[in-house]
């Protein structure tokens, strides 16, 4: 799909998402908020994995970093908006600091290092104690807002963050940095000898990726009002986002969003209808995805539309 078409589709989805809270109950409001949250993480992965080809399996590290920065800030009476900005920016800074040495590693070594980073952060928080709460977990201030209003606000915060993340990816796809990343994904030496500062491009990509992930983590912390390392640095977050990115189409603009939506909705429906065998069904769903749409839904749509227009051309030629 062309960037233009993807953007148009995104605009339609955004309008639907804006009016959705008026028509759905609190259960589906929570499901959709989760969809947006994990879609942000998937967009974050899209930048470093889809564009740069660096498999940051441990990107959940920044979800946790964002959550803890937001948590500690909120406990220190920092206003919510600023706390989220700190979570976003702080995660980017952390990615910059660790990316500087780690992104000199190529390919798989980086993937392993990113997982190690996630594990290391868990240990740091556990042993730090103090303001992070350590192994006890960290309770956050509870909002005085009425729950209905609060959950709607969080829904819109997640939606806003997802919109910004998608716009960033859209801008990236046509930018110099986007070109640099796609070039180095296919041939790092090839990109270097054509003048691309690959290390700088990779670090920038990881910082953008971390900012998105950290932002989602920050809002999540505020939503949950209690965080602990097990759930904040859960590698399952990166894994789920990874599957969604693949399902939607990595390196595309709205693929990760579509993937997150399809995956989470299917998972939720399966979960509620077949509580005993939901894991089995999810597994079968995943296998089907890998076999039937290995390049993702967005690529599938572009292929189908290319075929349709080719068929139309043919019919016109015959007539």
């Amino acid at each position: 799909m062309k960037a233009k078409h993807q953007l148009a589709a995104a605009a339609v989805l955004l309008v639907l998402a804006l009016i959705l809270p008026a028509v759905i109950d609190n259960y589906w409001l929570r499901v959709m908020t989760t969809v947006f949250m994990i879609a942000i993480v998937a967009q974050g992965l899209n930048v470093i994995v889809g564009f740069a080809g660096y498999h940051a399996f441990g990107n959940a590290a920044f979800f946790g970093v964002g959550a803890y920065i937001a948590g500690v800030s909120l406990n220190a009476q920092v206003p919510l908006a600023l706390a989220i900005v700190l979570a976003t920016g702080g995660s980017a800074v952390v990615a910059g600091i660790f990316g500087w040495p780690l992104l000199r590693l190529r390919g798989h070594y980086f993937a392993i290092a990113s997982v190690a980073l996630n594990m290391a952060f868990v240990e740091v928080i556990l042993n730090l104690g103090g303001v992070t709460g350590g192994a006890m977990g960290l309770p956050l201030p509870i909002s005085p807002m009425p729950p209905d209003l609060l959950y709607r606000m969080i829904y819109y915060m997640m939606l806003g963050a997802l919109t910004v993340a998608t716009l960033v990816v859209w801008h990236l796809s046509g930018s110099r940095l986007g070109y640099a990343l796609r070039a180095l994904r296919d041939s790092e030496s090839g990109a270097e000898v054509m003048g691309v500062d690959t290390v700088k491009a990779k670090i920038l990509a990881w910082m953008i990726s971390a900012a998105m992930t950290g932002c989602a983590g920050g809002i999540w912390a505020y939503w949950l009002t209690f965080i602990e390392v097990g759930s904040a640095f859960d590698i399952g977050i990166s894994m789920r986002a990874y599957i969604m990115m693949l399902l939607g189409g990595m390196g595309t603009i709205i693929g990760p969003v579509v993937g997150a939506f399809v995956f989470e909705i299917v998972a939720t429906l399966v979960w509620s209808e077949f509580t005993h065998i939901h894991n089995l069904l999810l597994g079968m769903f995943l296998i089907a995805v890998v076999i039937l749409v290995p390049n993702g839904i967005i690529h599938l749509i572009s292929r189908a539309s290319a075929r349709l227009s080719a068929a139309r051309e043919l019919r016109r030629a015959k007539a």
Partner: protein
Amino acid sequence: MSVQPILSVRDVTVRFGGVVAVKNASFDLMPGEVLGLIGPNGAGKTTLLNVVSALIRPQEGSLAFEGETITGLKPHVIARKGVARTFQVVQPFKNLTVMQNVEVGAMFCARDRGKSQIRALAVDALQKVGLTAKADALPSQLTLSERKRLEMARALSTEPRLLLLDEVMAGLNHTEIDRIIGLIREINRDGLSIIVVEHVMKAIMAVCDRIVVLRFGEKIADGTPEEVTNDPHVISAYLGERFVRRQAASAGAA
């Protein structure tokens, strides 16, 4: 008169563990010159190109480009200074179109260039190598000959003053080789200095002003094509007696 060399390689030694890939190699390239780098497999030709484009850092020795020391600089810095190269095993950006592949060089090798200027440079480079009709194709849809020419277009889009060509003719047929020979002459006429690593002797003899011969990482000859091909060391190390007989036969026929 003394013209400054565009590239000077001084006492370069590269070791991979215990293996010495290049040993004390020194040579100069004069502006506008086409230099052939030949030698048996494993002689260190590609390693030497990798040293010039900074993909490998030599343990010893120094390099200067246009009089400025470039030893220890990063590959992208060298590229931006005006040294471009192709790879023996072509390395296209397989998810970018042919046009986008070429645009990368134009985009990153000169700052503050507008979109239209980048496009113009890419169009120009594609036209030079005869790939204009394939601009919107993906590299996977190209033939080997076209992929080799895409490598050259990508290098040319960086607006280099020194071009390193690593076996751009390997695996091509005679017509395709002649086409590349014509292309090398043409870009050399535009003022580019060129280093050609090649096994196709016909091409080396056709385009090179001077030839450097490597064996086991050491330079064993450096001279005009005639001097080098008559050098008994070079004949025994690389060319072989058959080459000499064939040269003599074709000289006799002419």
